[in-house]
């Protein structure tokens, strides 16, 4: 945003005395944009997830409000606005009131470094990835606060579970990102995207076997950090009633869910930026894209599509998998994900060193990995076809009804 502010200052010839005001104004506008984008995304995802869940369970899902029930999320939001905000007796009322906003702020603050296009980004920090890992710790604080302040045993259990889970899973998240930072040599998200190409085999996910595995490790542990199924233990509704948000109602309750759905986009966006080439358009150099407003817009759309695909996968996983138990969750973190990501770091170091002396190997590995993943995707398609043939039921390719 500093770039844009300075451009505006130059364009209008505003003297440096007023530059602070303009910069603040520009940041304010960007903040509003990010908030609106995140809220719209969270709202629409809440409707979209229910529709997807409906189709997977051979039912319809919400379809009453507006075309295909599209405005359902708005209706739900309005309903929650007008609901009574109940604060139970004997709660720690200050903590109880502010806890949802901690969670909300923790997730929303990541939008500072999440890029939309080469120039549209809150702040291209040189410690971007570290910032994300640090700021999401606010979510833990918020959830623990909510669990403690509600004065209920179920919420307390949910809060403690959540604290244990999220703090543990920050380690594999950070480690798996380091796998990419080694070949990239930077922590800034924009720089990482710049270093990747537009074509799939130039993405960091196919850079070497280490990064390929690191993508899946990152994805799994980010799910766990974001409390999504199969790792939604803090709000496991069949065990802990509703976990840390049992006692909440109205808009405060909605803020927790807001944060959860916004987090979907954050997970998708970071994975896109770090592993999947971000906003790069195939065949167009970075300088050309950064100079043209239209190409930036195309880049934004490409970024959004990649992120949305990942969000789809997250939703899809949620309606497929059961939930882990708390000890299994910890075993998975400390016995599987952390050792594996350390191995991947070593692999990544190895390949990065090798590539310096043998540059042709780089392209060969990338293309082999790319073809491998295409084969897996093809086999998946075959399995889906097999399932449809094996259990004959009316197929219906329109995704809505």
């Amino acid at each position, binding site marked *: 945003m500093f770039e844009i502010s300075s451009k505006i200052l130059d364009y209008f010839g505003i003297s440096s005395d007023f530059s602070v005001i303009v910069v603040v104004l520009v940041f304010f506008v960007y903040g509003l944009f990010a908030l609106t984008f995140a809220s719209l995304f969270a709202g629409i995802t809440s409707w979209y997830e229910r529709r997807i869940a409906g189709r997977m369970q*051979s*039912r319809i899902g919400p379809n*009453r409000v507006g075309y295909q029930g599209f405005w359902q999320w708005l209706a739900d939001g309005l309903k929650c606005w007008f609901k009574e905000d109940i604060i139970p007796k004997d709660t720690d009322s200050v903590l109880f009131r502010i806890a949802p906003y901690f969670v909300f702020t923790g997730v929303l603050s990541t939008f500072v470094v999440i890029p939309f296009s080469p120039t549209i980004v809150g702040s291209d920090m040189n410690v971007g990835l570290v910032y994300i890992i640090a700021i999401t710790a606010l979510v833990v604080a918020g959830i623990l606060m909510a669990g403690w302040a509600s004065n209920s045993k179920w919420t307390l259990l949910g809060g403690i579970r959540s604290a244990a889970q999220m703090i543990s899973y920050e380690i594999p998240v950070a480690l798996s990102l380091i796998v990419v930072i080694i070949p990239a040599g930077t922590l800034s998200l924009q720089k990482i995207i710049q270093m990747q190409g537009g074509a799939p085999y130039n993405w960091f996910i196919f850079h070497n076997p280490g990064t390929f595995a690191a993508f899946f490790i990152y994805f799994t542990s980010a799910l766990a950090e974001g409390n999504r199924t199969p790792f939604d233990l803090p709000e496991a509704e069949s065990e802990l009633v509703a976990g840390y948000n049992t006692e909440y109602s109205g808009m405060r309750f909605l803020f927790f869910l807001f944060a959860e759905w916004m987090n979907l986009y954050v997970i998708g966006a970071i994975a896109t930026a770090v592993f999947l080439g971000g906003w790069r358009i195939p065949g167009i150099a970075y300088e050309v894209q950064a100079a043209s407003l239209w190409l930036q817009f195309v880049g934004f759309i490409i970024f959004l599509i990649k992120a949305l695909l990942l969000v789809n996968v997250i939703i899809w996983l949620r309606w*497929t998998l059961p939930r882990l138990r708390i000890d299994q969750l910890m075993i998975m973190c400390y016995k599987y994900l952390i050792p594996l990501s350390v191995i991947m770091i070593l692999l990544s170091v190895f390949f990065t060193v090798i590539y310096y002396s043998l540059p042709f190997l780089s392209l060969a590995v990338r293309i082999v990995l790319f073809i491998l993943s295409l084969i897996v995707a093809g086999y*998946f398609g075959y399995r*889906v076809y*097999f399932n*449809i043939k094996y259990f004959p*039921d009316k197929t219906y*390719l329109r995704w809505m009804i």
Partner: protein
Amino acid sequence: MSFTNYLANIRNSVVSIFEGMAVTFSWMLRRPHTVQYPDKVDKGHELIKEGFRGILEVDVSLCTGCLACQRTCPIGVILVEVSKGTERYITRFDIDAAKCMYCGLCTEACPTNAIRHTKEFAYSVDDIRKLVLHYIKEPVKPYKPVKDATPDNFNAGRFVSEIVKNREKEYVEYEAPSVKIPDGGQTEKEKN
């Protein structure tokens, strides 16, 4: 835990999650099984199968006043009153639909199929007393069974009687029929 076990765990998880996701994705491409309730209410009634045990209705013109249904009912939902005298009159036939559990024992006991189930099932009202259905407005002479009658003769077609349909408007505090019964017959009320 051995190292092969460790690797087997990873492989099993990946394979089973892969298979599970293929199943859920294949269901994304199928038609939902549910019927859209508010959109297709009329269709909903057609979906109810023949022989569904809905609200009870009574064809009073077929009732013989034998009280078989009242005796069979395990929970006392049916109340039939028959006047005594030289000539019998049915003066009251009430069914408490709020209490009925739709077991269908009364319909089997009925010799003339006068009491039977309809397909009607949705009947919420604002007062529980409106669910007491009164089938007799005026004293009715009992039906005289035909010799070689089979139950099918009487069941021309399953229809929802007017009383079931208009139960909201129909509700009036029950009074014994005021019409004088000829031949010296007495209603229960007059006796008391």
